[in-house]
């Protein structure tokens, strides 16, 4: 589904790579948490999957396609297979809930008939039926995020990328969003979620990929937010070129590439 091979990304004008020699594989139907400090490379990872950025070296395969081989004209068509949710919702303030979700389908040229079936369906999935005519500013944060999820979901993507979707929400609302994401995952959509929310990660016990300083330091199934309690170790990983000390992490115990 998603395969990274020795992927390194160095942004122009910076010496330190945002991602440094990352290899991993995420299988169809997995629910993956991407954890790590701000600036550790989580967002870069998501941007690379979306082909918003090109890797400096290494190759990325998503949904059986080599991203390096997709021409920029074909990128939009590739993205139709992905749904994306952000911390700040990114709704259009002048459009109603219905119009926000329908916008996705309109701009990829779906017919009116299709839109009028798919949008209420997506809104029902996220639990927002009856609020189609509201505007984003009339909704709570949790409801706004549900609209964003409905928008990501409405085109039935194979992969859902979520960049700290609960970052702006209180714990109770976050729990509701997570229940929703779990249900989406249960329906067969691969979910990759970058997060800082230790409580959520610990509770769900899914695959956890921890990134520090652009390197994967842990890839653990059924893991929690933080298995390495040693802050000095984290600092070492944060230093460029420090490399991973042998046996310091649970990398060896990971079962990357193997279905759950």
């Amino acid at each position, binding site marked *: 589904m998603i395969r990274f091979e020795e992927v390194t990304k160095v942004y122009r004008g910076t010496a330190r790579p945002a991602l440094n020699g990352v290899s991993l594989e995420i299988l169809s139907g997995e629910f993956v948490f991407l954890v790590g400090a701000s600036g550790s490379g989580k967002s870069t990872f998501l941007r690379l999957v979306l082909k918003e950025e090109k890797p400096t070296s290494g190759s990325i395969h998503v949904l059986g396609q080599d991203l390096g081989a997709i021409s*920029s004209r074909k990128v939009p068509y590739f*993205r139709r297979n992905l749904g994306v949710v952000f911390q700040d919702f990114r709704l259009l303030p002048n459009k109603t809930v219905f119009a926000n979700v329908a916008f*996705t389908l309109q701009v990829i040229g779906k017919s009116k008939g299709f839109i009028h079936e798919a949008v209420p369906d997506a809104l029902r999935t996220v639990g927002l039926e009856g609020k189609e005519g509201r505007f984003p500013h009339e909704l709570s944060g949790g409801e706004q995020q549900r609209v964003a999820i409905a928008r990501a979901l409405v085109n039935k993507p194979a992969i859902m990328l979520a960049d700290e979707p609960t970052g702006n929400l209180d714990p109770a609302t976050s729990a509701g969003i997570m229940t929703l994401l779990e249900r989406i995952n249960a329906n067969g959509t691969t979910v990759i979620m970058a997060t800082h929310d230790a409580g959520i990660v610990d509770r769900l016990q899914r695959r956890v990929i921890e990134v520090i300083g652009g390197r994967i330091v842990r890839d653990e199934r059924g893991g929690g937010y933080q298995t390495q309690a040693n802050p000095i170790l984290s600092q070492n990983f944060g230093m460029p070129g420090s490399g991973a000390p042998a046996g310091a992490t649970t990398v060896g115990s990971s079962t990357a590439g193997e279905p759950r």
Partner: protein
Amino acid sequence: MRLGLVLSEVGQGLRRNLSMVVSVVLVTFISLTFVGAAMLLQMQITEMKSYWFDRAQVAVYLCTEFATIGGCEQQAATPEQIAQVEAQLESATLAPFIDTYYFETQEEAYANFQDQFAGTAAAELVSPEFLPPAFWVDLVDVDQSQILVDALGGLAGVESIEDERAYLDGVFDMLNASSITAVGIAALMLVAAVLLIATTIRLSAFSRRRELGIMRLVGASNRFIQTPFILEGVVAALIGSALAGVAIIAIVEFFVQGYLTEALPLTSLVGLDEALLVAPVLLVAGALLAAVSANVAITRYLRV
């Protein structure tokens, strides 16, 4: 692609950016009016050239009692000298180059002069003896007037040989200069128009960056994203070029046909036909210009 959606986006963009759109309209209007004026001037020059060059003659002026230049010594050309010039014109060397010629006596020259300058002070001052008799020569090839100058220049009784085209060249040089000036101004204004269109489109894209970001995220095709912006530029430019077309037609109708034809009754001037030819060219030029610059401006937002 859904036409209604694209058009409503275009309408929104135009309304949101109204002041910029108005400036685009004005700049394209002015610049294309200059382009149109330059085109009309060129057409005028071509028309006058074909009209006048066909009629341009070479005048072989003969001596009068008052002439001191050329082969004259304040003596009017004698009938023998006139006959000699005529013999030269008929000779085997010159005849092949000459289409027709005729002799104009002083009285005929006076009558023509009175016709041409009727009612002016000059007509009252001039008397027949001041006007030289002349041979008016139509050449087979209007470019070969130098042959006549070489052959007849030294003859006794010949005052001077003048190619009427020399006067016309001056007029055409002037018209050419003004048309080049118009083209120059038009070029500068067009550069301004292109930059302004690009800026307007960037502004429009910036004000819609949320929508653009989401469109790119959910996989709207580049063409779908581009089209409203390009159309926005094209619509603004089309309004400007339509105004320019109307201005050109109005100039021809009211200034050239209404005023200049009366002021210059002997000149054939450009008419509505030419103006109606220029106007669509301006429309197409305006639309193309806008499409290209808007396309370049928006491409930046589509880079992956």
